């Protein structure tokens, strides 16, 4: 008896179309979460405001930034730090979907089920765009005076987006390998805290002890911060811009296939 396999005879354009369609459905799902989850919505607004005001007024007076006013120095750092923290929402969402059995359910459908991860990553992007807008608004209120041109603002937005994108994929990896939803939290902190604080986000690296300074000056988050700061207020850019782009794009290119591999193997937590 010959079994005619209808499903696999369909042409590739068709399955490509459905892969896009399925992913869009799952992106829509994650975007809906932003506005239905009060915690997420509040954290978009409150955390950047808190950081901005605390650093501007509590630490600002004590930190020497060499000619640049502290608030001008700070904005780039806080933007990047907020983006990094915001991106960890992906690990939480992924771990939750695994725990609730939603990933398993999607895996029993005839679709590209890893689209669920893309959904969370895109939601991270949207959340971060919103919180960046809020933050820059607050920054202006507390004395921020950038000198970026329109084209420089577009470059800033571009770098921030590829950085968030890269960080969200890192976050997806954490969500997939963490043993529990709670575990994603501390794994996130262990990675995000050193990367954002041991950088030029809040203080110039020149005052740090040698070993730490070497790390802080050469790690990717500093490149991203310095590139944005330079575009914003005209500090020297050096090779920060190029390195920032290489890091973000390079990491994303490596992370996506790895995430796909992990996703195929992962089971309900």
């Amino acid at each position: 008896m010959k079994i005619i396999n209808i499903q696999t005879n369909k042409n590739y354009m068709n399955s490509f179309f459905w892969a896009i369609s399925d992913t869009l459905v799952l992106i829509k799902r994650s975007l809906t979460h932003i506005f239905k989850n009060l915690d997420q919505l509040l954290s978009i607004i409150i955390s950047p405001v808190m950081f901005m005001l605390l650093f501007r007024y509590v630490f600002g007076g004590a930190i020497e930034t060499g000619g640049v006013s502290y608030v001008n120095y700070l904005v780039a750092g806080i933007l990047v730090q907020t983006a990094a923290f915001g991106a960890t929402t992906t690990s939480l969402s992924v771990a939750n979907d695994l725990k609730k059995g939603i990933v398993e359910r999607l895996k029993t459908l005839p679709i590209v089920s890893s689209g669920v991860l893309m959904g969370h990553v895109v939601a991270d992007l949207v959340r971060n765009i919103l919180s960046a807008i809020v933050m820059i608004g607050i920054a202006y209120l507390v004395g921020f005076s950038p000198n970026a041109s329109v084209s420089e603002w577009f470059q800033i937005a571009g770098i921030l987006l590829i950085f968030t994108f890269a960080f969200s994929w890192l976050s997806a990896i954490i969500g997939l390998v963490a043993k529990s939803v709670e575990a994603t939290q501390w794994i996130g902190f262990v990675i995000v805290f050193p990367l954002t604080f041991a950088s030029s986000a809040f203080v110039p690296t020149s005052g740090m002890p040698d070993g730490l300074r070497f790390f802080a000056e050469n790690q990717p988050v500093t490149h991203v911060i310095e590139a944005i700061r330079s575009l914003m207020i005209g500090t020297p850019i050096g090779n920060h811009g190029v390195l920032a782009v290489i890091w973000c794009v390079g990491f994303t290119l490596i992370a996506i296939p790895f995430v796909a591999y992990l996703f195929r193997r992962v089971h309900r937590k």
Partner: protein
Amino acid sequence: MKNDVVISIKNLKKSFRKVEVLTELNLEVARGKMLALLGPNGAGKTTTIRILSTLLKPDSGTVVVNGFDVSKNANDVRASIGLTGQYAAVDDYLTGRENLIMMGRLYHLSRVDSKTRAQELLKEFDLLEAGDRRASTYSGGMRRRLDLALSLIATPPILFLDEPTTGLDPRSRLTIWGIIKKLLKSGTTILLTTQYLEEADKLADQVAVLDRGKIIALGTSDELKAMVGRERLEFTIEKENDFHKTLQILGNVSKDVNKDEKRISIETDGTVSDLKQFFDKMSEAGIEVETFSLHKPTLDDVFLKLTGRPVEEKQASGK
């Protein structure tokens, strides 16, 4: 493969690390029929369902669903099945309706069809009123109903139900049973796992008893019941005299007697008339029955009968 067999498992083996969960499983389900896989926790029920629904790969053996091999044509299998797991995998942030529409879109129904179908299912599953509320506000029974509805959005010909009523209150259980019966009438082939003998008995054409990764009994629910016995009426009579009188009245009726606790248990078909007959006889003789209770045979009875040992909790990890 016979044409009317739509689920076929041959010599299926599956181990996790060193623990053998399925030792040698063989099973067939005919189109439009329902088979209940009955077994205690850890017998391998969930593992079987996970392999059938392509979530796990078999170590060896052949598993064919709707004519497609689960290892070679996973996507075709997925297009033929619906799965309702033990855990009600619904999106808490979305409403019941949004959950259904999303699932419809993922099954590639059009936007309009997804909405129509969602409305139909909400109505059918008694969720219309709660349809536009977030799933996080649903009760356990409502979540299970929504979960079941989600797996039916594209009317799959084959349905896997993994302990669909475990942990539910009796009323919700009856509602789910009603839905399952309707599905059977409409021609869906169903494989259901359960720990409840009553559930298997009420719903299934065939019952397979699973123990330590092997089928140890297979037959119609009547055959299984004939083996285990019927319901039992258990009662106690405190007064020494009455106790002996009762034994005399019962005569050679098959009964279990516990003299120390003044307890007697007899078979009954559980009908009101049968029970009334018994109690009438007692009151005519002026005998006072202190306490009584009705016992339905349970999975424990089946196990005791089949294996000579009671159900062991957690035979192996079902993950």
